């Protein structure tokens, strides 16, 4: 994936309405009217979001010339998600170590008063 393409993907994903549109399209293609329905937004406003998603290559238009349904294009999203997932797993490995350390620290704190009494 080129950096410019990844930039466009992340920029398109930065908006909650656009993520909601993608989530809706993940369960099947839909027309602009159908996509506008759950949001309190005009069709032109939704069309603007759809244009950003289309330019990022995240959605495309279906065959039906009348409904012009939009559908999800999986590839760029999968690529963007994969980058995030790899970075996430790197940090999750660290945090698992921190979990273990915190357990040891808590066990240590619980036994400390005893030690103090002994001295």
């Amino acid at each position, binding site marked *: 994936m080129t*950096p410019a393409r*990844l930039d466009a993907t992340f920029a398109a994903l*930065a908006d909650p309405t656009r*993520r909601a549109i993608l*989530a809706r399209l993940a369960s099947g293609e839909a027309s602009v009217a159908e996509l506008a329905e759950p949001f309190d937004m005009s069709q032109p406003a939704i069309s603007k979001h759809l244009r950003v998603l289309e330019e990022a290559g995240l959605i495309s238009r279906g065959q039906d010339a009348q409904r012009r349904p939009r559908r999800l294009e*999986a590839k760029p999203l999968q690529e963007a998600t994969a980058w995030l997932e790899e970075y996430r797993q790197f940090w999750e490995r660290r945090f698992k170590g921190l979990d*273990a*350390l915190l357990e040891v*620290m808590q066990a240590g704190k619980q036994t400390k008063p005893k030690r103090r009494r002994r001295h």
Partner: protein
Amino acid sequence: MIPDKKLKLNASGEREIVMTREFAAPRALVFEAYTKPQLVQIWLLGPPGWTMPVCEIDLRVGGRYRYVWRRDQDGQQMAVGGVYREVKAPERLVVTERFDDPWYPGEAVGTVVFTEKGGMTTLTGTLLYESRAARDGVLKSPMEGGVAYSYDLLEHLLHEQVRREA
């Protein structure tokens, strides 16, 4: 299949990476683990096969920190350092971050917020990069390689995000 759901990580806006993670410990302890050199050395790991032989922390506003990781196999090193901009124990840290051998352009600013509820601590870490290109570069850099991913994962992530914001 979702490999691990505990850590949530997302690209946010143009220049940020945001992560949230819960820990089963009071925040004073999590803060301690984040700021005491002998504890940081234990958990802030590099890639597999690397250790952190050097960990210096001067925990006060304007104080510096420096971490050095080393691959024992061939002695290769990787180092990062910066300055504490805010220190508010046990709830908030703001630090600058710059690698000796930069793998992203410029300096990043990291903010870590610790909140406690019912004995659980939620950590929210935000890394703000100098540019969108720097942020995306970090996300593109190979970390451990060979991660399996699927359409299911994507759908799950999207739904989760939408639910959170609803």
